[in-house]
């Protein structure tokens, strides 16, 4: 079992004919993901290694029954691509694109609120359910099927921590890269809720970083609604206030958003928090023993 992506995923790729779009689409298909369509305006009728290309997401959904979209559209058009997918009735949109203006994302966020479409990202590595489906750019080789769920704001920390887990022989049900932008789709709380309901997940690893209050709010959710064990990791203890650390959302403002406060919030609700990615993997191992 898994969350968000799995054997029922039928994927349409928006921006499939771009270099990155083509490369990752084919990797995802090689992993076993059911890629049914691509969308690039003006290229309807063409195909990418046998994957039919349409002008609009609506046409792709009509013709192929796609239910999930992955977006590689450049930042200037990516917000509109998300809206297009939502209006075409797509259930899950995974937006890989980095650099979308926050104002555009605020509008998308308001539009999607309360609707049926779930958004992952933007500026994220995507979602993988090892052995079932990969939607995004997480390298499938480092993952292993298993019963640990993982959700992270950082992409490379997904890789690092999954790698540490796999090396200890601990597989994953689903890994969710939620992305590092200030305004984003699915977060820790929604992911924790899905993992809590998933019979295939026994434990959840939550990987946070400085900035915002997502981790603090997630900690409250853990104390009220999560029965499965949670192991945390927070990056950015050494980050100075007021400096943006790579991700648009990774910034300590005043006394808010520090790594120490986030780790403390998680520990106060009984989650174990590792101080290094290696320690996170050992804590998971101990919790499952």
């Amino acid at each position, binding site marked *: 079992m898994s969350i968000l992506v799995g054997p029922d995923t039928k994927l349409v790729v928006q921006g499939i004919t771009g270099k990155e779009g083509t490369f990752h689409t084919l990797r995802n298909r090689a992993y076993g993901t059911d890629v049914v369509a691509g969308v690039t305006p003006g290229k309807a009728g063409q195909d990418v290694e046998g994957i039919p290309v349409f002008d609009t997401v609506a046409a792709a959904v009509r013709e192929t029954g796609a239910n999930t979209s992955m977006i590689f559209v450049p930042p*200037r058009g990516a917000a509109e691509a998300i809206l297009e997918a939502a209006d075409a009735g797509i259930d899950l949109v995974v937006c890989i694109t980095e650099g979308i203006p926050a104002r555009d994302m605020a*509008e998308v966020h308001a539009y999607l609120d309360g609707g049926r479409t779930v958004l992952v990202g933007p500026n994220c*590595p995507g979602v993988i359910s090892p052995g079932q489906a990969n939607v995004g750019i997480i390298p499938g080789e480092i993952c292993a099927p298993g019963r640990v769920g993982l959700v992270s704001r950082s992409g490379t920390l997904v890789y690092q921590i999954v790698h540490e887990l796999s090396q200890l022989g601990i597989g994953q049900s689903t890994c969710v890269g939620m992305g590092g932008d200030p305004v984003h789709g699915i977060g820790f709380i929604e992911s924790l809720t899905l993992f809590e309901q998933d019979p295939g997940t026994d434990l959840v690893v939550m990987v946070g970083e400085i900035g915002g209050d997502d981790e603090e709010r997630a900690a409250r959710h853990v104390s009220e609604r999560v029965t499965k064990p949670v192991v945390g990791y927070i990056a950015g203890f050494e980050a100075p206030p007021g400096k943006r650390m790579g991700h648009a*959302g990774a910034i300590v403002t005043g006394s808010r958003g520090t790594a120490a406060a986030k780790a403390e919030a998680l520990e106060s609700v009984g989650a174990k928090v590792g101080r290094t990615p290696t320690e996170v993997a050992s804590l998971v191992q101990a919790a499952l023993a």
Partner: protein
Amino acid sequence: MGKDLFARHGVPVPRGIVAEDAAAASAATGDLGGTSVVKVQVQIGGRGKGGGVVLADSPADAARAAGRMFSEGFKDMPVTRVLVEERVPIAEEFYTALLLDRSTGGYLAMMTAEGGVDIEELARTRPEALRRVPVDPLLGLRTYHVRELTGVLPPRAREGAADVVRKLFHLLREEDATLVEVNPLVLLEDGRVIALDSKVTIDDNALWRHPDLDELRAAFPIDPVEKRAKDQGLQYVKLDGDVGIIGNGAGLVMSTLDVVAQAGARAANFLDVGGGASADQMATSLEVVLSDPAVKAVLINIFGGITRCDLVAEGILEALGRVGAEVPIVVRLDGTNAEEGRRILTEANHGRIVSAATMLEAARRAAELVGGGEAA
């Protein structure tokens, strides 16, 4: 920069004149009626507390204050411009801010009748004194939002404040700002409401919509090494330790800084080479990191997902051929084609390169090399 944007959107501010030397500050003070407020123009906050804002009672006073700012700089930053502003007769001070609230994904407007306060402190201790009004990005700021906000102010300030808030919201949206803060917002003795000091944060992701803002920003000094990295498209932040850090992905780099600290040393910088990590990017990254005289060792931490470690290894060697290095460079490669990458580095047998198998080991080696580490 905030004041320039305010002027563009018609937000009332005190009259001000930019001066680039002490004589100009003196002349400006004369033009403003003989008294002024002299403010340093830098891209960092907290200038009110650090001597960056000085009240001048005469043109000679202004010249002295400006002269000191130009010669001493401000918080280690060079000062090339000061703003000379008129002194206005203040009746009352308030606070307002409009921002993109990341916890809701929408806009938030805030106002309080208490001026000159620490807003975080106020929000914590007396939240009822701070009026907070969420604004849907698709609806925009409506009349009822403004009424609710300004209701927290004394009646004679409400109309003027409403005008300011509407213009600030327009600025927030049109200029792709994520924060517009006015502290203090003041009621003058003649009944006008104006923005006395301001802070505007622009969303870097939206700069392509505002080429003019890039120019405006270029007029304010930032750290020269940070500027060089930025020009090359690298994410670089100067820190105060002596281990130079290069990694791929913001989260992994932040994590590397933390692990180095746990190993007993401190990072000299944050540098994210981004995805793909080509030889060229690696060379530029090494140049940027090595240009910092504080760096005694470098740690390169790469987890190859899409990035292939064999290409990274070749990039490192090519970079060293181009820039040279007088300090040891600890390299940890993991993920896609890591074994191949390590083999390339081993065979090159470069005198400065120290290979490490894991992130933890790499951090410990780097810490030992700068003399700060605990025995591994």
